[in-house]
């Protein structure tokens, strides 16, 4: 084959490919437009009935009547967008309305594609019954971590604290997820899961990331009995992040009884521990000695600690001492001025802040 023929063959091949791509784009466009129109029509048809069901003006059983099989998935998806925002009786009515369609979601649990399995656990978490929970717990060990995470969130959303231990044991799989995301998920269980969270938080055998997430969840749940363990963990030798999580918990749930454990950390060489110790001490102690310690932290080498100290003074109502400091020119004075201005307690004067 000559160079001419080779180039000609390539040119024809590339042109045919370009034509196929263009045809694909046009077909995708037409298909998507049609799918959008169908979705809009379905939603317009189903939504009024669904709203009637939710407000109690229609029997939940009527919603799924006459549904053809291919509509089960879209109907469940529509219901899931409502379920996300509903609770209590409305959610119960929604679940009852969707019950005849749930076999579709249960079948998807065994799908080959992980996104379909994730959709299934999400739908069963929102709309499923008690009988679906073992399947959700099983999905915690799904080979896809994203499905496992969806299962964890779905299981937590059921608020069945009986599964809290299983979920906490599975958290090792989600170590790449941020602490906040995991803690937020654990919080969905509600207060009944607090004893399980506290056991994990206090156990040295549990991985540190899991303990931190449990501490964060306990803090968000406002579980006061956790303060004692938190004080012990904050004061013990261990990872900075875990001790910082314990201090955050103490800030929200601790009291004067835990102040001594926090006080020792005000002089810690770690910026992170000093910051959280200052924050916690300002919140839990009314001792004048502690107020002096927090004022001293306004001169801390870390601007984060200094600013947190100023905010701590404001949050604990010690504004007078901060106002007295605001007049000078050094770091503690600038920190005081900024904190007061941000709290709307005094207008800061113009001038170079840096």
């Amino acid at each position, binding site marked *: 084959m000559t160079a001419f023929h080779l*180039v000609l063959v390539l040119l024809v091949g590339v042109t045919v490919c370009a034509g196929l791509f263009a045809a694909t784009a046009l077909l995708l466009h037409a298909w998507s437009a049609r799918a959008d129109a169908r979705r809009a029509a379905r939603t317009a048809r189903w939504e009024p009935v669904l709203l009637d069901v939710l407000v109690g003006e229609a029997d939940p059983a009527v919603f799924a009547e006459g549904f053809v099989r291919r509509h089960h998935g879209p109907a469940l998806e529509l219901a899931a967008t409502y379920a996300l925002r509903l609770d209590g009786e409305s959610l119960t009515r929604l679940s009852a309305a969707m019950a005849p369609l749930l076999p579709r979601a249960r079948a998807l649990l065994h799908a080959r594609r992980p996104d379909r399995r994730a959709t299934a656990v999400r739908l069963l978490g929102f709309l499923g019954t008690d009988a679906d929970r073992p399947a959700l717990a099983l999905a915690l060990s799904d080979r896809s971590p994203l499905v496992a995470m969806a299962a964890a969130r779905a299981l937590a959303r059921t608020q069945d604290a009986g599964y809290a231990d299983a979920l906490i044991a599975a958290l090792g799989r989600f170590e790449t997820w941020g602490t906040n995301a995991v803690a937020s998920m654990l919080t969905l269980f509600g207060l009944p899961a607090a004893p399980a969270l506290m056991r994990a938080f206090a156990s040295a055998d549990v991985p540190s990331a899991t303990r931190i997430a449990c501490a964060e969840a306990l803090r968000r749940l406002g579980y006061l009995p956790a303060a004692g363990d938190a004080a012990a963990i904050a004061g013990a030798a261990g990872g900075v992040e875990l001790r910082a999580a314990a201090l955050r918990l103490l800030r929200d749930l601790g009291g004067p009884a835990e102040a001594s454990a926090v006080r020792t950390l005000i002089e810690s060489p770690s910026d992170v521990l000093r910051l959280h110790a200052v924050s916690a001490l300002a919140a839990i102690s009314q001792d004048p000695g502690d107020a002096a310690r927090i004022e001293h932290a306004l001169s801390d080498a870390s*601007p984060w600690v200094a600013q947190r100290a100023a905010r701590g003074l404001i949050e604990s109502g010690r504004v007078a001492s901060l106002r007295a400091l605001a007049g000078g020119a050094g770091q503690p004075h600038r920190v005081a001025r900024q904190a007061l201005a941000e709290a709307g307690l005094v207008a800061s004067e113009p*001038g170079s802040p840096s």
Partner: protein
Amino acid sequence: MSPFLHLALKVGSGLVLTYLVVVAATYVIATAMALPALVRLRRWQGSRHVDEAASAASTPPVTLVAPMYNEAAVCVEAVRALLGVDYSNKEILVVADGCTDGTVARLVQAFRLDPAARIPAESLPTKRVREVYRSRDRPNLWVVDKENGGKADALNVGINYCRTPLVCTLDGDSLLGRDAIQRAVRPFLEDATTVAVGGTIGIVNDCTVRHGRVTQVRMPRRWLPRFQVLEYVRAFSAARVGWDAGGATLIISGAFGVFRRDALVAVGGLREGLVGEDFELTLRLHRYHRERGLPYRIAFAPDAVSWTECPATLGVLGRQRDRWHRGGAEAVWLHRRMLFNPRYGRIGLVAMPVFLLVEILGPVAEMLGYVAVAVAWLTGALNPTLAGLLLLLAVALGVAQSIAAVALDEFAFRRYRSTGSLGLLLLLTVAENLGYRQLTVWWRLRGVWKFLRKDTSWGVMTRTGFSTAP
């Protein structure tokens, strides 16, 4: 014809052909890698709702840093857009970089700004800050007025004054999509080692903007912005998705990127005096983490969109393109140690060499090809039929790649929803070869020349303002 010239022409044409094959292979591989990534994205969109993430109370606080230099025409609309972004846990920090057109005065008036105290939490070296303002009505809106020092300097001021774990860097005229931050933050939640995430840039020219939000996406009315729409679709819906799928995201656009603040501080912030500071920063983040063996991820979130006005005149576009090209060359030169170095993994062994060969040297190779054809024609060594076919093949490859990118965009995003827009995009894949492409080659060559001369000027970007609906 002398034997030397004959040999030179033969070698030259062989090199150009080899180059063409390498470039085509690169595009095919990137597009092929983008397809499964977009299929995954589309599939998971059904089971991962942004609303669910928003309601999970797990969203980390983000500071949106918008540097502005003489953006009086668009600054109020841009800040309104930032305030309207659906993300509860955000602070907005506008950094006015020595503006002389009344940008600060307009912001002060529009948002009732008062001078306020704010202490920088970091101390990256920057130009002097003249004043810090805070909005009386919107307590999460801050404006830092500083002496002019360039975009990198302004962003460094933003990093210094940022108090949240995540920093989102934007252009002064960026209009973030409603859920852009939710989507850009998701990789940080799903993988704690993520240090930076880039988003897609869309072109806002002739779109309808209402209350700082793009409410109707339309193709621009003028041809120059239309060509740029196609370029952006090619870059963001195909190339970057493909590179991200291969774990080799090389560029996070300065117009929209979310970074971990501590990672930015660790690498010393943005480097000043460069024209491609965003690209250089991404390379430095790669280098920093790889040299220390730290686990990290730099990701791309194609469904997180920030809209920006693109140049509408040849002069401004030419300056932008030569600056981009200089920026790319400069960053690769600064980090040349990473090139072909196994220590830097797929970044040093694949992504950077491909960038150098295809993007930086592309216009040089194309120009050499034109010169070789001209010389061969003048010396009678040209086979006109074969040369014509080769030219057609090069054009067809480009068209096929562009159409594939349009198809991928249509599959995953459908931002331009009308059939007319799609038809126009397809038409542009051919039309851009009739002059526009050659112009960009010229501008990029100018960039190479200026890079060699160490020219670091920015040029002026003229804003016309958004077409705001009542």
